[in-house]
């Protein structure tokens, strides 16, 4: 600790603190413009200048200068005030004073500083800037006229997002923030740049002229897209969510969001939201009242027993899942409940469930930056969980944490400094992990001895053998094993979910074996972290929304519908027609089932086939808890009233339970208390940031089954996954995300494109044994020859017409 004096107040701070940090601790306000606690010191704006007794004759920037023992700081002397005032006068010289029409008005740091320092006149005069405003993309407006060149956008894009889409160009007064070759913004549209812009130089276009900042109420919530568990603040006016508002103190991620979190909010107040229940009459879905609809559903469910089934989306709150589970298992008497198409959660439910003794990750997102080595397996975390990607980026770039990657395609991760990529043939991941485990054993690097079964099973996986199978050099496998073993703390990451059939229980077993043998479990900054797809994927497992004793899983339920053994199917929030593989079979099943109930926000492709459609609420309209992928349980509350006549599912299933003579939990707290996995967490006491549910590990070495996938010669190995801009199918109802990524595509390598003479954006035909689909081609440097990648979100030209749920699908691609 270092003790210093600021404005006659003594304060003790950590020795790497800056004068600004110390002043904050002492309760002294020092104005800043270019400083951001998340970013490296920059020192450009000179607003934070102070006088330091020991450094006389100069003004010292508080935000970049480290404290020293006995320092005497004065934060507001006449020379300091004079300098600050001059800085503001200078900034206002060319800055257009168009505050009345600037979206930043009322939330503008320049405005506030000018006000605080009473800069109401200017001795100087100059022309205002005349830079052209950049409207070249649908989401981010760049108005260089308002820019104060604090560089925060440039720095956040480099230091946290690792995209580097913005940079300073030109010199002196001509300096501006530019893009690559001054072209349109080529980026991920996460909007981090907007979030840190202190003025109106970077604005969210979808929010333009929607509301003055102060006219909105700011409601805190948890993002309803992926499993990261980011906290968001929603800007609400007239009962509509108009924007997301940046709060640098929010969440482990300090308010940073991805494109979905920041721009994907529009689905909430979308015009396409269902306003009333719908009942199929004369083969037409017609509007109906809740009483009629619920009565109809209750009647169908009553006594249905195992002829009824429910498929839920892991976007529902834990409490809603508790009630739906109760409805099905207790009132209806069916154990046929599942989510995420069944296989989507297998890596965690079955894989980690067996290997770790608990269906959850051993590590949290916070462990990433505390690790010594990150082993990312088959994960495009920047696309599936972008904010986790930021954590990895900061870990690697700021802390020098090593990054090892096993993947069947390159990606943003493999471009990080020092990243080591083992590029394997699609479908060979488990064999590769086994080979790594084999090296651990052979070179006596294992901390925990292998069971005889595992040791015997691994005998087939010598690096040389596996090298042939995977296309990864044997030495690279050995080096990876050695690096993993040498790291005191190592964290394994993989992605699981609907689009990742390859991330199955076997992969989880193989990964868990590494952690067990390597002795990486049970310590901070180390272990396994499964990055699950949806905002409450982990919650659905913790609630146990999986087939009960003798119950059918999702695939069996659909088969049962086709076969006629399932007569009533309740689909809560899932959109199997688009998101489940093998579309033809899904459609056949939903056509065949006698009675289909769909609860959703929208009239989805699945809802259109329903007999009863129940309009339910988005996360912005309801209360409850979500459990992030690392078992962080967080509470949400309603930011706006329910849209139209929609109801929170908590209420819908509660009413159905009552109609069937049961007793639903009266409150969310009551339902929450029923979740055994959350014993020890009090619903009432859950505050901002939530609480981590305990994970008790009982590691077991499970021998993974290795299925080798071979694609016929001449065919492409088609991989499925998520696009950065989308999560499931819900983001397709957010105009923001759709505006930057609105249609299906397939990524192929440059060489393949050249061979087949396919140009960027050309329409190509994908044909598999199950069908054909036409999509746009994207030529991508990250793909290897013979490998193709397609995201699964899109209803039109849906990839599930050619994809039947295999980890790797053989397809032909033609023009």
């Amino acid at each position, binding site marked *: 600790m270092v003790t210093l004096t600021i404005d006659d107040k003594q304060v003790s701070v950590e020795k790497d603190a800056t004068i600004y940090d110390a002043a904050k601790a002492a309760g002294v306000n020092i104005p800043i413009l270019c400083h951001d606690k998340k970013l490296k*010191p*920059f*020192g*450009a*704006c*000179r607003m934070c*200048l102070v006088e330091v007794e020991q450094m006389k004759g*100069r*003004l010292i*920037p508080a935000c*970049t*200068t*480290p404290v020293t023992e006995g320092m005497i700081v004065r934060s507001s002397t006449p*020379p300091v005030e*004079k*300098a600050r005032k*001059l*800085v503001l006068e*200078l*900034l206002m*010289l*060319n800055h257009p004073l168009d505050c009345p029409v600037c979206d930043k008005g009322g939330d503008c740091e320049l405005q506030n500083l000018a006000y605080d320092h009473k800069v109401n006149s200017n*001795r*100087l005069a*100059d022309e205002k800037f005349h830079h052209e405003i950049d409207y070249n993309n649908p989401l981010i407006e760049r108005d260089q006229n308002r820019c*104060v*060149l604090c*560089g925060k956008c440039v720095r956040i894009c480099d230091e946290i997002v690792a995209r580097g889409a913005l*940079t*300073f160009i*030109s*010199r*002196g*007064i*001509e*300096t501006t923030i530019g893009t690559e070759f001054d072209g349109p913004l080529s980026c991920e549209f996460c909007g981090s740049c907007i979030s840190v812009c202190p003025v109106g130089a970077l604005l969210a276009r979808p929010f333009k002229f929607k509301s003055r900042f102060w006219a909105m109420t700011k409601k805190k919530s948890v993002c309803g897209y992926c499993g990261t568990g980011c906290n968001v603040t929603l800007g609400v006016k007239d009962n509509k969510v108009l924007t997301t508002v940046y709060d640098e103190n929010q969440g482990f991620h300090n308010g940073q969001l991805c494109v979905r979190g920041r721009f994907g909010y529009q689905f909430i107040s979308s015009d396409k939201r269902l306003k009333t229940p719908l009942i199929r009459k004369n083969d037409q879905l017609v509007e109906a009242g809740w009483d009629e609809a619920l009565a109809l559903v209750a009647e169908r469910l009553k006594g249905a027993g195992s002829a009824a089934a429910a498929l839920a989306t892991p976007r529902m709150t834990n409490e809603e899942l508790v009630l739906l589970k109760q409805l099905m298992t207790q009132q209806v008497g069916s154990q046929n409940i599942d989510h995420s198409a069944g296989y989507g959660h297998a890596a965690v439910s079955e894989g980690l469930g067996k290997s770790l003794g608990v269906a959850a990750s051993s590590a949290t997102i916070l462990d990433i930056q505390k690790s010594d080595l990150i082993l990312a397996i088959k994960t495009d975390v920047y696309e599936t969980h972008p904010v986790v990607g930021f954590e990895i980026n900061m870990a690697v770039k700021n802390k020098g944490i090593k990054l090892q990657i096993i993947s069947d395609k390159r990606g943003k991760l493999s471009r990080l400094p020092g990243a080591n990529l083992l590029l394997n043939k699609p479908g060979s991941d488990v064999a590769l992990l086994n080979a790594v485990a084999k090296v651990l054993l052979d070179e006596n690097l294992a901390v925990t001895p292998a069971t005889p079964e595992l040791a015997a099973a691994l005998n087939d996986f010598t690096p040389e053998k596996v090298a042939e199978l995977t296309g990864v050099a044997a030495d690279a496998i050995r080096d990876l094993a050695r690096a993993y073993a040498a790291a005191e703390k190592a964290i394994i990451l993989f992605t699981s979910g609907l689009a990742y059939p390859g991330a199955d229980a076997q992969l989880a077993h193989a990964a868990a074996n590494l952690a067990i043998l390597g002795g990486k479990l049970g310590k901070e900054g180390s272990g396994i972290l499964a990055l699950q797809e949806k905002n409450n994927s982990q919650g659905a497992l913790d609630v146990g929304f999986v087939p009960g004793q003798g119950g059918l899983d999702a695939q069996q339920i659909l088969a049962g519908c086709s076969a006629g053994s399932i007569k009533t199917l309740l689909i809560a929030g899932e959109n199997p027609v688009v998101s489940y593989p093998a579309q033809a079979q899904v459609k056949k099943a939903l056509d065949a089932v006698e009675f289909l109930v769909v609860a959703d926000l929208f009239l989805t492709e699945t809802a259109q086939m329903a007999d009863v459609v129940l309009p339910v609420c988005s996360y912005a309209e309801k209360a409850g808890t979500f459990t992030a992928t690392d078992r962080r349980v967080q509470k949400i509350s309603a930011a706006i009233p329910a849209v139209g006549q929609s109801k929170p599912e908590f209420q819908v299933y509660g009413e159905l339970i009552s109609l069937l003579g049961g007793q639903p939990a009266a409150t969310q707290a009551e339902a929450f208390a029923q979740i055994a996995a959350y014993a020890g967490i009090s619903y009432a006491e859950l505050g901002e940031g939530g609480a981590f549910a305990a994970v008790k590990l009982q590691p077991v070495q499970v021998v993974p089954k290795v299925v080798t996938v071979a694609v016929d010669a001449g065919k492409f190995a088609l991989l499925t996954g998520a696009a950065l801009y989308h999560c499931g199918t819900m983001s397709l109802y957010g105009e923001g995300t759709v505006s930057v990524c609105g249609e299906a595509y397939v990524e192929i390598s440059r060489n393949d494109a050249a061979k087949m003479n396919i140009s960027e954006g050309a329409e190509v035909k994908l044909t598999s044994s199950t069908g054909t689909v036409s999509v746009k081609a994207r030529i991508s440097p990250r793909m290897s020859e013979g490998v193709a990648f397609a995201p699964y979100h899109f209803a039109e030209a849906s990839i599930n017409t050619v994809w039947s749920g295999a980890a790797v699908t053989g397809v032909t691609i033609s023009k």
Partner: protein
Amino acid sequence: MAEAIKILICQGTGGISAGAKKVEAEFNRIIAEKGLTATVGKRCDVVKTGCRGLCANDVLVDIVDDKGCTTYDFVQPEEVAKLVDEHIIAGEPLEKRKAKPYYNKFVDAQQRIVMSGCGQIDAESIDAYLATDGFKAIKKCITEMKPAEVTEEVKKSGLRGRGGGGFPTGLKWSFCAASPGHHKYIICNADEGDPGAFMDRSILEGDPYCLIEGMMIAGYAIGAQFGYVYVRAEYPLAIQRLQKAIDTCYEKGYLGNDCMGLGFEYNMRIKMGAGAFVCGEETALMASIEGERGMPRPRPPFPAVKGLWQNPSNINNVETFANVRHIINNGSAWYAAIGTETTKGTKIFAVTGKVKHTGLVEVPAGMKVRDVIYEVCGGILNNRKFKAVQAGGPSGGCISAELLDTPVDYDSLIKAGAMMGSGGLVVMDETTCMVDISKFFLTFTRMESCGKCVPCRIGLKAMLDILIRITEGNGRAGDIETLIDLGTTIKQASLCGLGQTAPNPVLSTIRYFRDEYEAHINDKRCPSNSCKELLLWQVVEDKCVKCGACKKACPVDAIVWEKGEIAYLDKEKCTKCKSCYDACRFMAIE
């Protein structure tokens, strides 16, 4: 065999621009053609040397024979045959073509230590360097001295950084040496950007090995194994010669993992800059080496602790490193005996402007400004009246006539309101308008501001706007006060040395020549008749001596003059090019 006849041809950038290559080719051709060696009975060697400082009088050729050294200036290729015939073959130096006495005065008034090799030895020959005790100092360091002793020797010598700030070099080295870390860097700042200053370039072009040796000594003293030379890409010849020198050092084992077989590891390479003045600032320079945009970074952390790629780094400029071998070879006491109490050794100045002999001069610290201008450089051009000298380039300030006796050392110059800087001296005479000159420097710094911090980026532009207004006759009451106010605050508030010094030319000209500012603002008059917008474009009849020089100079026949008549300026025809003003030695155009 008798001593060879040497023909030294100045081939720095200045010499080559003046045609030195053609002169050299001509000498070689004639020597071969005439079989000169046989004819004279001595070897005749043409040696291309570096710059000797008097580029304005290039091509300079020295013929060194048993009669000593004879210097010819302004040599043209056509004259070579005659020089060979008469001087070399007939042994009769061409008296008429010899450089006039000014040359000896220029040379003799100097004390050349750093530039001792420049202009004397073949810059591209390691053997020539070795013949001047080359690499003796580094060998002495490695074999006879501990690293700390080397630093101590440099400390005792009193050497201070020649890049501008004048920080004691030995002390700087000791900081970096004391920093924990295995990877340390020696960086040479050869991003010489001050307008008119070219001493670093001349050293690189004329004696590149002495820089390499200096950096090696620093590397040994500090414990660094790698050196970067950051040279601006606008110095192609310097880069070419330095690269050749580095390559040769690698070939001959002077650089590498085991330098000279003495177990000392030292590698180095050149990093070319893209010509940003701000990259002379050490943190910006390091950012540039790292491949980032050349923008200064806040200090602390200081480079000695966290510099290049976050490793301890020591950065000095070319001239500083070039001093080092002489200190080691001759001892710190010898070095400390030169110069003044606070400034030891010599300093190279680039004297430009309204002075008779512009060029590079190396003088012992403490010489009076007056002597540099009048003794070494021959005084003011056209014998006009001295007005001021701008010392320290765009970061420095001006020294007025009253302070001409200021000694050139770090502290005296600062006391006079200027600074040593990298050693630029811009001499101004009565035709120079001080408002205009500060406008000139501010135009430069405003262009070169990296744009990072607000005071420098916008503040300099605001100051320049006011200066432009003043020189255009639109000055307002209060402008001077605003300039002082802005300038003072910009100095205090800016991030790096550029902004912290950029207002100096304005502030110092206001300090010494406030009346000129007031004349511009209040009387809309430029006392030096230099600001075009304020000129009356007429002949001052009582000053006109009827010489007609203005008429000869006028490109558009706007001057009416007959022999013995007072000239008349036809404003209709005049294009305001100022040729007549410049041509008139009697200040008769206003």
